[in-house]
């Protein structure tokens, strides 16, 4: 691997020495300053996750969930449960604990234990609290619930065509040029692409520990992507001042979007702690992870694509339907990328959601866009095939110079180079134009490509920096790290700017009392919080320079000497940072190009992803190792999305039937080939001082399309419904 050079603060653009202009990161990097700052703590068990906090007198909650899909609770018989050993209480709407915020607000989000309404199967309807987890689990099994059942609908597929089923507009319709222009094109593709419900299912189960220290003061240990967001939600629901709420969430065992809101189950736990005046811990079970903390919605997408015989796109139509819930609505950016990704005069999109009697969905990595990209990028591949063009040439030919949807330039975009580099690396020249013509023993071999794109944003965040005479720097911000390596990225930014070794820098996060920062989502943390770190470091540096000048010291004197000379144990600064005005004139996006090689077994239909090259065009890479990990994780998630993930719900009962890790498949090591990651690594001149754009989402977005396209190239079989399992190959 090329060595990282620590340069002075003015030339972030020279951070990498690049022989060929790009930063290849090899599989086994030597241990160096790019390591995760908390890596050792994580692998040695020192890192403490929310469920590991042992508070004195801790009690344990276990949820009772509804076994019907829609209707009303007639009665909850808690007698046996309450008499079971160790049980402290059973909370439900029958004894409705007082929650000030519930009385004032509207119907959404779902108010837990507030009414007798059942909105979906698996809805939490009671919380048993006992002095051990096992006792609470046993007592929960003794709670008897009687219901009044009502007819329900969980059937997404048949609801699409059923006119009696209500559809809501998920996003205003969009039109540029002529509507449905594809219909009159010389060559057209018109297809439907479907996706099942996927669940986030990080290793760490969801939950919370709540501890009311006084009547209006609560501390929680949470699994959250935003400590400030959690703090605000609690303040709103319980009507206590924000400063009376302490939210701790230093380590998070994976979020993928599901920890972007405070779920009813967390409110229930906080309620219970308040009522019992004891700390209460709730950790839900794996099967509850399928129904209580959201999911990626199922989707049905129609794409119409028109082109001239020469391969110029003339029209794109994208109509999408997503699954939502009856008691709360959820929408996402399924059709977003269609509006600007290709150079087409005519584009129209529409997006509807169908409220079903299911738990409400939530963003899942690459939210919406990952769903949309599967459809759009499959259709693009279908068109290239119809035109007898190399799909890479077809994409390059239709790559727009500017954002036609917003009518403004891109802040930076190097995807043509990304196509070239990725193609070289995967050996695209070995791809055959005629599908099914490359054979390796019992396997058919194919290559596929797809693009991913996500908004590169920058929000507003504050960071406090404390530079100490002992040579150390402490940085603080109420941001989160759900796994990408937030602290590592921030530490590297500061290290380069101030020329302080990384082991002398501590970045504190996951604590609501620190300077405010937004939730970790939408790939914006490095851009947002990193900019504030930048500003803090620049400010500290100029303070030191001033102090040095005032005390007649050499301009290059080390800050420790400057501080000592001035008798200062430390200097401190807090900076708030946000996007500059210029940003409004540009469209800012991160891009990824995924190349995959697949092998498909001719007799069994088994698909193996045998090679992956993911190219990231996301501005300057600040933290090469964790950036690479993001791309690798995205590719692994993409293999799951493409080949195996599917939550199966039996519409006769409204219940999931594969709600465990044996039956809900995510990739195992043996499914994951070596993954090559290439970064364009060129700074974006607009977005932020680092020139870095987010990349958590683009790592996944588009990946499934690349696999589907490779499967087509290998077999001539176009699978338009995810996941691509052996049965679908055999029956195609």
């Amino acid at each position, binding site marked *: 691997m090329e060595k990282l050079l620590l340069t002075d603060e003015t030339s972030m653009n020279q951070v990498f020495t690049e022989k060929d202009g790009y930063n290849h990161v090899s599989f086994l990097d030597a241990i160096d300053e790019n390591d995760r700052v908390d890596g050792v703590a994580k692998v040695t068990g020192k890192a403490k996750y929310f469920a590991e906090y042992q508070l004195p007198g801790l009690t344990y909650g276990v949820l009772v969930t509804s076994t019907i899909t829609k209707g009303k609770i007639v009665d909850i018989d808690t007698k046996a449960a309450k008499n079971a050993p160790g049980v402290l209480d059973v909370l439900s709407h029958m004894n409705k604990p007082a929650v000030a915020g519930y009385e004032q607000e509207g119907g959404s989000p779902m108010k837990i234990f507030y009414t007798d309404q059942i909105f979906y199967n698996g809805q939490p309807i009671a919380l048993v609290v006992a002095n051990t987890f096992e006792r609470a689990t046993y007592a929960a099994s003794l709670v008897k619930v009687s219901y009044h059942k009502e007819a329900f609908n969980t059937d997404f597929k048949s609801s699409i065509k059923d006119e009696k089923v209500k559809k809501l507009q998920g996003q205003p319709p969009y039109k540029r040029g002529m509507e449905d222009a594809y219909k009159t094109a010389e060559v057209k593709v018109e297809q439907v692409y479907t996706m099942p419900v996927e669940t986030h299912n990080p290793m760490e189960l969801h939950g919370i520990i709540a501890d009311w220290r006084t009547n209006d003061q609560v501390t929680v240990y949470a699994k959250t992507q935003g400590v400030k967001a959690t703090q605000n939600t609690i303040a709103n629901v319980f009507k206590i001042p924000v400063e009376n709420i302490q939210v701790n969430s230093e380590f998070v065992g994976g979020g993928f979007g599901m920890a972007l809101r405070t779920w009813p189950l967390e409110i229930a736990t906080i309620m219970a702690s308040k009522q019992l005046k004891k700390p209460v811990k709730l950790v839900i079970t794996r099967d509850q992870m399928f129904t209580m903390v959201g999911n990626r919605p199922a989707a049905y997408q129609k794409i119409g694509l028109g082109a001239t015989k020469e391969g110029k796109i003339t029209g794109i139509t994208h109509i999408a339907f997503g699954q939502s819930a009856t008691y709360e609505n959820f929408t996402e950016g399924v059709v977003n990328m269609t509006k600007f990704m290709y150079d087409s005069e005519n584009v129209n999109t529409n997006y509807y959601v169908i409220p079903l009697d299911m738990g409400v969905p939530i963003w899942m990595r690459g939210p919406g866009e990952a769903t949309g990209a599967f459809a759009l990028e499959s259709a693009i591949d279908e068109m290239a095939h119809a035109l007898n063009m190399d799909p890479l040439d077809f994409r390059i030919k239709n790559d727009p110079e500017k954002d036609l949807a917003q009518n403004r330039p891109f802040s930076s975009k190097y995807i043509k180079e990304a196509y070239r580099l990725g193609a070289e690396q995967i050996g695209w020249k070995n791809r055959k134009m005629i599908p099914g013509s490359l054979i390796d023993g019992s396997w058919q071999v194919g290559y596929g490509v797809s693009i991913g794109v996500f908004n590169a944003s920058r929000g507003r965040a504050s960071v406090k920096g404390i530079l100490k005479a002992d040579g150390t720097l402490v940085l603080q911000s109420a941001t989160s790290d759900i796994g990408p390596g937030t602290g590592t990225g921030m530490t590297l930014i500061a290290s380069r700017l101030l020329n302080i070794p990384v082991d002398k820098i501590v970045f504190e996060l996951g604590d609501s009392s620190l300077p405010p920062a937004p939730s970790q989502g939408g790939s914006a943390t490095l851009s947002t919080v990193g900019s504030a770190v930048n500003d803090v470091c620049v400010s500290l540096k100029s303070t030191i320079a001033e102090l040095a000048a005032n005390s007649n010291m050499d301009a290059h004197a080390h800050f420790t000497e400057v501080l000592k000379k001035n008798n200062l144990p430390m200097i401190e600064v807090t900076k708030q940072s946000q996007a500059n005005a210029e940003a409004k004139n540009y469209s800012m996006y991160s891009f990824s190009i995924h190349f995959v090689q697949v092998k498909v*077994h001719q007799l069994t239909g088994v698909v193996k992803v045998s090679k992956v090259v993911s190219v990231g065009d996301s501005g300057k890479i600040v933290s090469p190792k964790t950036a690479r990990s993001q791309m690798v994780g995205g590719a692994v998630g993409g293999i799951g999305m493409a080949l195996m993930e599917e939550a199966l719900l*039996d519409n006769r009962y409204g219940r999931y*039937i594969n709600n465990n890790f044996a039956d809900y*498949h995510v990739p195992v090591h043996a499914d994951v080939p070596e993954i090559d990651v290439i970064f364009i690594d060129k700074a974006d001149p607009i977005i932020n001082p680092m020139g870095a754009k987010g990349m958590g989402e683009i790592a996944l977005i588009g990946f499934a399309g690349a696999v589907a396209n490779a499967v087509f190239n290998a077999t001539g079989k176009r699978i338009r419904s995810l996941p691509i399992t*052996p049965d679908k190959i055999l029956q195609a």
Partner: protein
Amino acid sequence: MINFQYLRTTAVKTALNLIVKDPKAVFIAGGTNLIDLMKRGVATPEKLIDINHLPLKDIELVNNVLQVGALTSNTALAEHITVKQQFPLLMLALQSGASAQLRNVATVGGNMMQRTRCGYFYDITMPCNKREPGSGCGAINGYNRMHAIFGTSESCIAVHPSDMCVALVALGAQVVILGHKGERKINFSDFHRLPGTTPETDNNLRKGELITKIQIPINGFNQNYHYLKVRDRSSYAFALVSVAAALIIKNGLISDARLAMGGVAHKPWRLTSSEDFLKGKAGTTANFEAAAQLAMKDAKSFGENDFKLKLAPNAIVEALTIAKSKS
């Protein structure tokens, strides 16, 4: 999960005494299946008799028959030198099951006794004749992608999920069982049963009996063999369809053949008519295809598992082809 009593013994006799007295008592070996069933409320034993300390872990070769103690772990069995040399088919089948962690604690007896993975069986709010006789079969008109195509009944279409058992039935193993009235032996192919009208009974082990051993005769099926497991991911997934295939090839002709399938029936499914067909024939693709077609006689699918009608014969051909190509 209900409150239960836990007892441990080192003597086979005590274990049998404990179980026979108490209708709500069960043996626990590795616990990898039983504990899951207890967590989901499917199994509600009041007494667990831990048999892990019984002296039933030996593997020895006696008169050309391999004797395997029922408490041998799946890992220990797969790694045993005689298994590697004489029964590599069994080794492959074991290694394709579950994950390394599970195989380390899962036992031979427990593997045979593991229950189906049918999703309706695992959810106590759903209908399932196997769990609650008379409640109906959730799978037959529901999600049955993983379900059986052979030997089904109107009351249950579940499959036995084991890989190990598929190899053992192909290898002609025997099961040694100890009960109060003494020891008895059953052919491995007669151990598991078809659902019929009593799907709640998985096998022919009687209440109060203990599996002590399995016996596998050395049979020469250690040159041309293959265990093919077709599944939704490369490891740690149950079989959509699996095939244990072994051939003895002499002078270019198949003198003996063994074939069995997993993931297709309520029991490991031996394909004797296909075996017979192959005997005396050349190992050509055409013959393998004909053997596969024979195997599919009487197959019946239920919608989501229609693909198995195509996958099963294809998998047989592939397994036989790989078995033949080994030398």
